[in-house]
Each structure stands twice: as C-alpha cells, then as structure tokens.
C-alpha cells in the first residue's frame, strides 16, 4: 500500500480490531487444548491456568485411546469429509461451468433453484431423508452421510464457483475450442486450474460444517462402525457424569485433521496463477 493512503492511526486500529478478533476466535480452542492436558480437579479448579507439574495429566488421552474405536471414528470422519468435499467440488464446478458458460432456456431459473439450497437448511428434511435412507437400506453407512453432505454443500459451491467461472476469459475457452479441445478438456484443463483459489475457498467452507456435524451422524449413522469423531466424543458426555478429560482430549485430537486439510487448501488460496492469461 502506498504511504499516501496509509495513516498510522488507521492501520493500528485495524490491527487492534483484527488481533482482538483473533483472540476471541482462538480462545475456546486454546482452552480446550490446555484443559485436555490437565487432571479433572485442575479443569474445574483453575480452568484458565496452563497445565503445571502438579496438574499435568494425560488421563484424557489415555481414556480416548483405550476406547479403541476412536481410530475408526477418525477414519470415518476423514472418509466422509474428503469424499464429500471431492464430490461437492466436482459436481459443483461442473454445474457452475454449465450455468456460467452455456446459454440455454431456464439457465437463470436453474441457477436460482440451485441457490435456494443456501437459504433453506437441509435439516428441515431430516425425517424425509431418514425415511429415504431406511427405504434404500443406507442407514448406518458412510454413503448416507456422504450423500447428504454432498447435497448440503452443492448450493453454495455452485453459487460461488459460477461467479468465478464467469470471470474466466471467453477468448481463452475459444482458443481451446480452436485447438480442438473438447468441452470436458476445456473444463478440466483450462477452467479448473484458473478457478483453483475459488475451489479452495469452497472446500474450506464445505469441510468445516461436515467435520463438526453431530446431527446427521446421530440420526443416519449412529452404529458403532460408522460413528464419526464428533459423535464418538459424545460417548463421554453422560446425563449425570461427564468425563471431561476424555471429551476435551477427543476434541483436541479432532482439531488436527481438519487443520491439516485447511493448510492444504489455504496454500491454494494464495497461489493465483491467472495472471498472464489475458491482457
């Protein structure tokens, strides 16, 4: 930014606001992680204090890992999240390309119809979804979750991606057509690399709610072999007694896979390669 448009006061105010927001956002995560390393007494006695020699305890992690099935839960969460992201990106990008690129009757209506999903929560249809899954025998399978999450993620993905696809130069696509690329080749080899930052954005938006979701795993796949991490952590929350050590340890562990995915996607966000394509 040029000096002329920069005032020290304004910059510092912006930074104060951003730092404050960061602290507020990170505080619960911080609290979860430090308390997961403390003994039960210390969690309740001094919830804000860092674990010291007298309060340090790995009992939470031991409980979680002894519970054996947690490896399966992590696997389930990862499979469901990754497959759903993949399907949302694939179908979302294809639908967005069609909406942005081709002139056909009902194009706008179709776009609106697909966007309605952003405004209407998919949970409203839970009963019908459950009935459907029962009828197709998909209850207690990861497929059920993947299908629901793909449907849940598509509207926003299509909305964001079609806006980005409109910004891809027509000349570039036409150059591809003259070079004999099929429409699929144009989509996969020219357009997708150019909208990669948008794809990463959509991936992040899609990923977080899926990873954190409790609702659909509880209803559609509560079986032991299909439990996700978030559902598995509920094991330690009882009506009368809650094993806080185990809950906090499970949640702390659950942060890491999603953090890794986020880092992968956010590198794509930064890497813009569009420059030099046109103009």
């Amino acid at each position, binding site marked *: 930014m040029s000096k002329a448009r920069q005032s020290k006061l304004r910059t510092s105010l912006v930074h104060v606001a951003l730092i404050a927001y960061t602290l507020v956002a990170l505080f619960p995560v911080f609290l979860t992680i430090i308390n997961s390393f403390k003994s039960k007494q210390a969690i309740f006695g001094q919830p804000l204090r860092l674990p010291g020699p007298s309060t340090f305890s790995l009992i939470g992690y031991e409980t979680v890992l002894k519970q054996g099935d947690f490896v399966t839960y992590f696997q389930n969460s990862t499979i469901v999240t990754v497959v759903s992201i993949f399907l949302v990106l694939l179908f979302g990008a294809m639908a967005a390309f069609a909406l942005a690129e081709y002139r056909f009757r009902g194009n706008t209506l179709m776009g609106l119809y697909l966007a309605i999903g952003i405004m209407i929560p998919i949970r409203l249809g839970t009963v019908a979804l459950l009935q459907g899954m029962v009828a197709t025998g998909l209850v207690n399978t990861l497929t059920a979750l993947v299908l629901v999450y793909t449907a849940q993620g598509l509207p926003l993905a299509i909305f964001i991606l079609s806006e980005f696809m409109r910004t891809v*130069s027509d*000349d*570039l696509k*036409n*150059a*591809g*057509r*003259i*070079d*004999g*690329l099929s429409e699929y*080749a144009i989509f996969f080899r*020219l357009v997708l*690399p*150019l909208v990669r930052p948008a794809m990463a954005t959509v991936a992040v938006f899609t990923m977080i709610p899926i990873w954190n979701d409790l609702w659909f795993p509880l209803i559609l796949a509560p079986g032991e072999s299909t439990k996700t991490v978030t559902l598995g952590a509920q094991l330690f929350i009882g009506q009368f007694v809650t094993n806080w050590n185990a809950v906090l340890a499970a949640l702390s562990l659950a942060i890491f896979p999603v953090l890794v995915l986020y880092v992968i996607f956010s590198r794509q966000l930064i890497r813009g*390669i*569009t*420059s*030099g*394509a*046109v*103009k």
Partner: protein
Amino acid sequence: MGSLELRNIRKSFGAQEVLKGIDLEVKDGEFVIFVGPSGCGKSTLLRSIAGLEDVTSGTVLINGEDVTVAPPAKRGIAMVFQTYALYPHLSVRDNMALGLKQAGTPADEINTRVAAATEMLSLEPYLKRRPAELSGGQRQRVAIGRALVREPELFLFDEPLSNLDAALRVQTRVEIARLHRQLGATMIYVTHDQVEAMTLADRIVVLNSGVIEQIGSPMELYNRPANLFVAGFIGSPQMNFIEAARIGEAGATIGIRPEHLSVSPTEGRFKGKVIHAEHLGADTNLYLETETAGLVTVRLFGEHRYSADDIVYATPDAAKIHRFDENGRTIVS
C-alpha cells in the same frame, strides 16, 4: 491453399439481428480486413467464420467445402485473439504445441513446426517461460506462433493489436504484413482502426450495423467511397460534409477530404475564421468556421503559421469533390 466464401450469413441474438445477410468471397492468399464502428457485427462475423458462433442462416465455405456446422477445430483455421488468450499454466512451447498434440500429430512433426514458428517470430529465448513472464508484445507473438504451427487454411485475427501500446502496435503491424508476404496465407483481420486496415489489407470490407457497406482495395475506398458512411469512415481527419444547396452544388451532400482543400490568406471559395489549429510538424490541421459551408477541417502538409482567429479562404480541389444523393449514395459522374 485457403479460400473463403460466405453466402447470405445471418445471425440473430434473440430478436436482435446482428448480421443481416453477408455475402463475401475471399480468394486464396488474400489479406482481407473487416472494419467498422463498435457493434457493427465485424467480430461476430469473424467468430461465425471460426465456428465459435452458430450462424442463424446462410452458408460458410472454406476451400469450397461447406463448414457451416463443423466444429472450430475441423475448419482448418487458426485465430489470434485481442486478449492473446494464452494458456496461463503452460509454457510458451506447450502453448504452441497443444493444438497439434490434441490433433494427434507425431512428436517430431510438432517439433519441426514449433521450431519453424519460433524462428520466424524470434521466440527462442522464451520457449520455456510461462505467459505471465512475458511482455504484451511477446505474448501476442506467442499467440501468432500458436496460430502458425497449425498451418491453417485461414488465419483469423480479432483486433490483435488493440491491447498493445502505440510503438509496439506499429512494430507488430509490420511483422504481420511480413508474415503474410512470407506465408502467402489467406488472412482475415478485424479491427476498428482504419490505419491498420489501410496499411495491411489487400481488400477492406466496411461493415455498418450488420451490413456490408463496401468492399474494395484501400485506395478504391479512399478515392471512390460508395456512400456517405464509407466516405466518413475512411480517412483521417474525417471528410467534410457540406449541404450541397448551401454552396450551390448539385446533389444532396458534398464531400471534400481535408487534404483536398487549399488555404490562402487573401482569396478563395469559402471565407472563414480559424477556430483551432493543430501543428503536427508533418501536417497542420485547421478547423474553420466558414460563412457558407459551416464547419470545415483543412489538412495542410508541412508547417504553416496559422493560428486561432485568423481569417482565411479555403478552396476545394474541384477534381476531388465527392457528391452524394439524398440516400447518401455516391453520384457517379
């Protein structure tokens, strides 16, 4: 090698008709330029030839073969775009080779062709770079190279110089002219810049609101414009149009090019006051408010010491007066 014939091409977008029956024949090896103001349909016409737009009706023949419904890649054409349209994630070499690879050309054939194009356009130092690492002029050369390696029947250029700065534009213009001589290929070129049209074309097609106004060599258009539109569009500064009755001439409108008027401080046909004088060194442009003929532009060659508010007399060269009837058509005398 490459001829083109258009028969009664029509194109509508919804209710709006953009091309209203275009007939044109381009002979092998010709350099034909479409000019016209924005929105006249020249780009749409080019894209219809390329197959990027479907025509609403009419026939496109390339080399005598009906390609009206053929996909762009099967028409034996190559196109250079205004925005270059290079593939940003591919190197210069791969940009040029992609079309050939897609067509299943053997690798050594691709190498020879890319090497030939590279040499013709002096692109050797840049082969491994990405488009983002090139300047505008270099990018446009790569785009031309990508067209060259296809060895097309027909080269199509869509305002290829519009994004370049003035100096580079002249340089690239010369390069395109040289390429045309060297290859003897048929080229079709769209521009709104009449200087490009006049300097490059064998024949110019002047388009206006979806209709061909006139087809002819640059000098034909300059000396014998078919109508008011062409007369006004070709030539800079623009031709002076004067109501014939005001100066006692036959016809409805009289057209005199600024360079066909002479100026004298003492006597002449139109007495007027200089409103503004532009001194360009090689030329001097005078804008006169005349008593009988209204506002008149005069282009004098060389330097002249006229300035605003001078009273001068302008006289047209009688042999170079254009006459138009009330429909704007040229009256042939």
